[in-house]
Structures are given as C-alpha cells and as structure tokens.
C-alpha cells in the first residue's frame, strides 16, 4: 500500500534535512517535490553561513545533518567573519558553487537508507478529526501517513514582482503552489504575507574586473562541517568589491514611482535587515555610497551575484542602475532582480516540536513559518524530521532549549513570539551567546543526536576524539606549572607582554586576555583548531559563563514545569484579563515559556505556578 511513516513535502533546505533525518532515524520516509533535479536548490545567493547562520549550520551538522557537509563539497570562497573578535561571535561564511551544492545534497539523499524521493506536486491534504491522514498529488494519487512535514518555502501563493509587472511563481522558473495554499488557507491556521527580494544577476564576462578590488578567501581555509576533509573542497576563487555612487542613487530616486514597494503594490512585510537598494537610498539618504560584493555563483557559472543591490525596480531602471556602478559600466543583466510575496503561517500556532497545535501529525518547517535563509530552514527541517520520526514511533518530542543551541533560540522565538517580518538569526537574539559557539556545537549536540540514532559513526568518533583530547589537554594545563625566568616564561613575556612572577599553572596563564593557547609550551596531544578554540573560550569566558549558568539554572525549574494542555486560564485566581487572553491564545507548554510571552508578568507566573501545584495535588 501507498503508506509511509513520514511524508515530507518540498525538497528545499528544510525538506532535505527533514527527509534525511527521518531516514537516518530509521523510519520509512517519502520526499515529494516538484522537480527532483532542483532538490537542494538555493533560491538566492549561493552562500552558507555568516554570523548567527553558521552557528545554525554547525548545529545541524553536529546532529548529523547535510548542510555543512554539502557546503564543504561546494565551497569556493571561505571567510571567518569577526576573526579579530572572540570565539563566541566568530562565524564562517562559505560562498558555494550552486550546482556542486545541489549535486552534493542529491548525492547524500540518494544513499540515504530509508528514503524514497518522488516527483510531484501536492495539491491537497486529507485531515480527519483534526489529524492528518494522507496527502494528494496533482495526479490524484493518495499517499498515506500519520506524520507529514510541510516545507514548501516561498511557494504558497507566491507572487513575483519586477517593476509594476507581476506573475505567479514560487521562485524564478518555478510554479507557485496555489491549490495547496488555498487548502491551507481554509484550515484553522493563521496566515500572513511576507516578501523578500533578490538582485539582478550579471554576466561574468561583461564586468571590468580590473576596476573592482579583489577579496581573497581566508588562509588557512576553514571547513564548515565537523567531519569534512580539506581534500573534499573544490578550487578556491576570489570575490570582488565595488560601490554604488551618487549617480546610482539618482537613478533610483528617478524611478521610485515604478517600484512595487513604494507604489504600494506589495502588501507583504519585508525584513528590516535586508533592505532593497531602494530602501537603503531612501532611509539612509546621508550615505553617498553603499558597498557591493560581486560573488561568483560557481566555478563554471557565468553568473555573478551582486550582493547589496537587491531591487524590484523595472528592468529598464535596473539596467541604468547597474551601468552607473564602477566596473559594471558594460555589465549585462542575465536575469533581472525581483521581489516575491508569499503566504506564511503564524508560527505561534506551532508547538516547540514544530507540529501544528491544531492538526495532529502535521508539521511545518522552513520559510513557511516566517523565517528566511537556508540555515534557518535547515535547522527547522532537522527538528521537524526528528519529531515526525519520534511521533511515528510513539515517542516523546525532542526539543532544544535556548541555552543549548541557536536552534532552540530560533524555534522558541518563533513559537513564543511569532514574527512580523522574515525572521533571520542574529547572535544578539541569543542571551547565552558566550555558551553557543561555533567551536562547541558538537559538544552541545552530538551526544543528543547519537541517542536519537541520527549521528553517523564517523561524526561520533570525531566527537569522542575531540572530547577526550580537550579533557586531557585541560588536565595538562591545570597540572603543568610555569616557573619565572625560564625560557618558556620569557617567551610568553616577549609575545604577550604578560610577566610571570611566581609558579603558576598554564591554565591560570591562559586566563589572561592577551595569552593564547599557542603561546604556551606544547603538550603531546594534537588538537584540532576548533578544540583549541573550545579550550580558550571556555577558559576566557569562564566568569561570564558561570553567571549565565546561574541564570539558566533559575529558568530550568520553570522550564521543567509543564502546563497541562487543557488548562482553563479563567480558573486561575488573580490573573488579569489581558494575561488570561494571552495565555489562552498562546497555550505555552511550560512555565518558562509562559514567562517569555510579552505582557506576562512575574506575578502572573507566580499565580500560575500556585494554581498548577494545587491542581497537581488535587489529582495526585
């Protein structure tokens, strides 16, 4: 029979992680997507990582996910952002070859053990008694499953805008999913509209590269995944930089009335942080220039992605605009920039497991939840995949807390607060930023992943080796002492200016801000660069981390106090009507989550706590 443990709809970044996680978990999984050859397609700039985002990508990797491994097989330009700052805020960014990336993802999926991939378009869902039963394709085929993950990205009711022209579509060259959108709009879920945009693509050979300044990648070249080898990486390329100027800005002002955003044609809300060049010129009129990165789309691709000039002006204006820029005087637009509007579902309608609150067995992940970005999509995909598998096998949901992972921050923000704009990760969203680092995503998550059965032997081995090596090294640092006036002490003084006046352990010396691990006498253990980072960070941040741990402990108790599903907030004595209403709508799953809802005061939490305690006693 046509029945699967889990069905994933959509082969984007959320969908592929979800499908692969289910398959690794060991449940029979089906991935349905429009076009197999576009599985793992990057709709926009082919870059993975960046601040906050690389943290997500590494966390997905630490749980055995695909994204970072695929990025390393396709990475043609690596940089570590914030490299002069501390470990907590350093972030790797990889420019990838779009085709290699897609190929790597498809390659991984083809060897995924329990996965079937099917080409098709889902047009309807069969829901009975508020429970998902099956999905129906455009050919009328009915496929059954009790757990369905919807990862349809920007495709639901997608409308693309270039100038005042609009057309329906999920992204350039792909149809939108209108029938499914209609079906979903009829369900008890809150729908909203968001928009995002992309710049025009330029032909590589039409740019005068001699006028642009090159921006080489970092050496030594980092890797994104904990398990990748340097040998898997393709050849490395440069990126280039140029700038807009007064003339560019004048062109934009002249054509503003033809912009769908400024003429009021687009009703969806765009992100505050990723403004189109129109926005930038209007909002920051005092700046006479904005930077543009010219990024290659791939090793053999003729396309250049001019990062920084996302626009939805009409093609004629886009041509003028490009011409005004240094080095782009004769550049040819291969594909115009456009803005896209699409449906998303208010994520406060979801549980932390990403299952919808109202329809059992139906999970949402990715852009459909109001996020933007590949990494954000992948992070939700893997969590939805894990939880759909757990549901299929009658097990309790898997959740990550805010102090455990950026994934936890992402999902908790979405589910507790909802979003009014496309949600993107930033490190400033994480209150435990010093704990959630690139260098320790594996230390935070790999054991959890292994327990779930989704971590490969290779990753597990690497994790254990790193864990053992860092523990040994820390022991050594604590045990080995440095004496004043020895050659080693003199060397440290010379390199860092830090004098050593009495016998002191290497561990204590490393606490000093200017001293790095590399300044200390070497031990016998060979350490990977991210192990060194982890050691340095945990020592240098020690005091701050202790403070954060106290905070976390305080929250933990509330985190562990569940609120029963069917609680009647009217019965809780003393709550204001406003708070009652907020809680009744949001239906938080624990006290801690209730406390993070806007407008819910500490006093209200106390009242709730007392009520719960009383109820439990009355029952037990």
């Amino acid at each position, binding site marked *: 029979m046509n029945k699967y443990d889990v069905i994933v709809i959509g082969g984007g970044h959320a969908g592929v992680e979800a499908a692969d996680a289910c398959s690794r978990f060991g449940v029979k999984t089906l991935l349905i997507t429009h076009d197999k050859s576009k599985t793992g397609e990057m709709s926009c700039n082919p870059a993975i990582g960046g601040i906050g985002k690389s943290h997500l990508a590494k966390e997905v990797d630490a749980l055995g996910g695909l994204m970072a491994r695929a990025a390393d097989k396709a990475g043609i330009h690596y940089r570590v952002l914030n490299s002069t700052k501390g470990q907590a805020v350093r972030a790797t960014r990889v420019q990838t070859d779009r085709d290699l990336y897609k190929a790597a993802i498809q390659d991984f999926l083809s060897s995924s053990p329990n996965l079937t991939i099917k080409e098709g378009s889902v047009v309807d869902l069969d829901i009975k008694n508020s429970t998902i039963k099956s999905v129906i394709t455009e050919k009328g085929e009915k496929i059954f499953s009790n757990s369905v993950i919807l990862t349809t990205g920007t495709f639901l009711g997608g409308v693309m805008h270039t100038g005042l022209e609009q057309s329906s579509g999920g992204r350039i060259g792909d149809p939108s999913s209108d029938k499914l959108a209609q079906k979903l709009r009829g369900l008890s879920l809150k729908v909203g509209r968001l928009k995002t945009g992309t710049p025009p693509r330029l032909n590589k050979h039409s740019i005068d590269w001699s006028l642009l300044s090159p921006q080489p990648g970092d050496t030594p070249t980092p890797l994104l995944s904990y398990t990748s080898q340097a040998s898997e990486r393709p050849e490395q390329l440069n990126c280039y930089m140029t700038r807009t100027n007064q003339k560019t800005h004048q062109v934009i002002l002249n054509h503003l009335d033809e912009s769908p955003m400024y003429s009021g044609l687009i009703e969806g809300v765009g*992100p505050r942080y990723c403004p189109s060049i129109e926005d930038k010129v209007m909002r920051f009129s005092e700046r006479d220039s904005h930077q543009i990165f010219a990024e290659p789309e791939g090793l053999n691709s003729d396309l250049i992605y001019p990062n920084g000039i996302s626009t939805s002006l009409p093609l004629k204006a886009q041509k003028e605009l490009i011409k005004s820029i240094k080095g782009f005087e004769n550049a040819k637009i291969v594909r115009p920039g456009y803005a896209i509007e699409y449906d998303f579902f208010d994520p406060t309608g979801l549980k932390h497991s990403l299952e919808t609150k109202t329809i059992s067995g139906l999970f949402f992940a990715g852009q459909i939840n109001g996020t933007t970005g590949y990494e954000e999509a992948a992070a939700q995909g893997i969590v939805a995949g894990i939880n759909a598998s757990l549901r299929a096998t009658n097990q309790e949901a898997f959740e990550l807390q805010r102090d455990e992972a950026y994934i936890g921050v992402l999902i908790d923000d979405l589910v507790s607060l909802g979003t009014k704009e496309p949600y993107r990760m930033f490190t400033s969203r*994480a209150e435990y930023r010093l704990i959630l680092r690139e260098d320790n995503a594996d230390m935070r998550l790999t054991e959890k992943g292994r327990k779930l059965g989704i971590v490969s032997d290779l990753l597990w081995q690497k994790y254990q080796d790193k864990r053992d090596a860092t523990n040994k090294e820390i022991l050594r640092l604590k045990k080995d002492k440095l004496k004043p006036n020895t050659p080693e002490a003199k060397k440290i003084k010379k390199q860092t200016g830090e004098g050593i006046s009495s016998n002191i352990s290497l561990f204590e010396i490393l606490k000093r801000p200017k001293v790095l691990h590399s300044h200390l006498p070497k031990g016998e253990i060979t350490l990977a660069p991210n192990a060194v980072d982890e050691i340095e960070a945990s020592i240098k941040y020690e005091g701050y981390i202790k403070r954060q741990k106290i905070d976390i402990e305080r929250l933990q108790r509330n985190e562990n106090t569940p609120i029963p599903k069917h609680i009647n907030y009217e019965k809780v004595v003393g709550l204001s009507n406003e708070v009652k209403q907020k809680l009744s709508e949001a239906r938080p799953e624990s006290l801690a989550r209730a406390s993070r809802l806007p407008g819910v005061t500490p*006093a209200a939490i106390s009242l709730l706590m007392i009520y719960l305690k009383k109820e439990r006693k009355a029952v037990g």
Partner: protein
Amino acid sequence: MSKNRTIIAPATVPGRGGVSIIRMSGKLSKSIAESMCGELADAWRFKRCSIKSRGGSKIDDGMVVFFKSPNSYTGDDVVEFHCHGNPTIVNLVIEEAVDLGAVVAEPGEFTKTAFLNEKIDLVQAESVADLINAQSKTAVVAANSSLSGEFSEQISFLLDGIVKARVVVEANIDFPEEEIDVSVLESVKEELQDFHAEINELLSRVKEGVKLRDGYSVAIVGPPNAGKSSLLNLLAKEELAITSKVPGTTRDLVKTSVNIGGVLIEFVDTAGVRHDPEGPIEEQGIQRSKEVIKKSNLCLLVQDATTVQGFDVGLGDFLTVLNKSDLLEGRFSNTDNTFYLSCSTGQGVEELLKALIARLGIDEGEETVFLSRQRHEISLRSGGLFLEEAIMSLSEGQVLELVAESLRSAHSALGDIIRPMSADDLLGEIFSEFCIGK
C-alpha cells in the same frame, strides 16, 4: 526543597523602634549568616552576636537563629537576624547578605516558597494567590510612587544611553561587514564612564531618600490651651510636657517617639498659635511651630471642643482633634477628618490613632514600598557594576562580545526598574541606526 535563590527581606514592618527581624531563606542562608555572625548556634537556638560586614566593621549587636530545613517557615534553610529597629541597620544587614549572594525577595516570595514546599496546606492556597495578587498590585503603585518624576526620568535617560551603546556594540558584532565606524567605540567608552558616574550619584541620592522616608513625624498644633501638651503626654504615657491652665505654656518644641502598631512615629508638641503673642519668646515659639508643620508628614490640629477657634496657619495634611470632649453635653460623633477626644479620660484615642495610621499610609503596602525601593537600589548597584565591567573590557583591548554581555546585564538590571526590552526591539534599533543588509 527549592534549590534556587536565597532570598532576604525584613520580616517586621520597617521603622525606628524596638527590634527588627530580617529573614533569609534558601540554600546559602547558613553560610551567609556565618560569614556575617561567625559560627551559628545549634538549629532553633538563638545566639548573641555582632553582625559584621566583610570589611570587619560592626553593623550591629543582635541575635541570630538558624531554622534547619524542612522545619522552618519556608521549608528551606532559614536564618533570622534580630537587630535594632533602625532602618539604616536593616539596610546594611540586607546589603551585606546580598553581597554574599542573597537576593531581595519579591513581594510574597517567602509565602510562595512556603507554599511550594508544602508548608502551607491546600486550603490556604487561594488566599496565598490573593495575597500575591494584591501585593503585586501595591507593588506597582509603590514602584510608581517611589519612582515618581525625576528618578525615573534619570533611569530612563541612562537606559536610553545604554541602549545606544548596545546598538553600536551589537551592530559591530552582528554586522562586521557593514562599514560601521569603529571609532564610535571610543566615544561609547567615554559615555559609559559618564553613565557610571551618574549611577553612583543616583545611588547616593536613593540612599538619602530611603532615610528621609523611613520615619514619620506628626506635629501637634492648635490654639493655646487646647490641650496639645496633654495629648503628647497621653501618647507618651509619661508627663513629658508641662501642662497648665495658662495659655502659652509651651514655648519649646517637645518631641517624643511612640511605637504605634510596630511603626515608630515622632510626635512634636508645639507652642499654641494666637494672633497676639505675648512677648518675643512666645513669638519665636510660634515661628518654630510653623517650621515643624512644614517638615511633618501630618498635623493634628487640636481644638478645645467647647470653644473652637479659627486657626489660620497653613497646614499640609491634617486631622482635627476636638479635645476636652468630657466637658461636652449631648451626643457627638467623629467624621473622616474630625475626632473627639478627652485627654483627661483617654476616650477617643484609639480611633484617632487608627485614623492617623491610615492617613500616613502605613499598611501592608508600606512593606512593598520599602522592598521595592530596596530592590531599585540593588538593581542600580548591579547596573553600575556591570557598566564598570563593560568599561574595563573596552579598555582591555576591546573584547567586544564581553562588553556586549556586560551591557546586556546592565541593561536588564536597570530595565527591571522601569522598562525591559526584548532582543528584537534592540535589533530594531540597530536597523534604524545603521544601513544593514544585502
């Protein structure tokens, strides 16, 4: 038992007088008390001791008793300090304990802890909920009143400044590619130093504020011979002031502090005021009466009930006392502002005192005013410390993520006083300040 915070607060209504009890509950109670008082006696036994600060200076001589979990008020380890009933001492003891790791309790937190540890039976649950609810309401009122005007404006100003600093620092972290001018970090440091100085000044003012408001003073005023001195003597239960039939007996101020329902109130007897004072001495006395009126929280305008006279000295808040009611014939009854009294028989004094307490606003709410003020002080103090930490990190070669962490903590400490801000609000500020995005 609850493994979380160790909380502390006065267990008696504050005021100068008698003994003040300060209660501390939680895991750290015993060790904090031992660092302040030396080794404690066996559980449930009092020990006489000097309460000392970590610097070694003596705060007070008093007694300390340790209640071992679970046989205590809250069910956790509890320590009670019994010290002299002076608000400054109470403050110092609490501050010391806070420095050692305790936190000032939320309104109703002791009761709540007791409830959660199942020290209070279920029947009482609803009333506990009511209590917390009521207290959190008065806490709001209290917070507003203790924060009115200037103080909250200043906190607001500081918060705006800290937000601006955070915007620069966070933008530098989250958007390193966005050409944000790094030199602004220098000016951030200077501004933070200014804010830090500002906090210290605010702190010293808050401390003074605490002292100013901790006692109550009531002036006894009225025409000569009405029985003002007699009232003072009645309240003091002692012949402190000379009384006589001769009008203009009292010339000097006579003060006495009386403990009324646990609150210490200072009463000041004044010279009777009349239009044609006899000689310069009486005139001076009247002048002083007027000054006392200005400084007091409330006046009792004493009149001879048989011959009520006009009294045209401006009074702030006042109650009228119609004295010598024993001489009246027929029926008489009190109103909201007028009270019949006989100093000779003592009749009517209870009712007068009840009205007086109510009018001074000394009720349950007062505890929360006191506590919330104290919490503000502590928030300010930790805000100041976090700023100091941020300034230090900025000086030490700019470990930006640590600067950011200290600023976040400073922001949340001060934000607790008036308005918390979410991470998303902060991002909004960043986006409006800098041109960010691709």
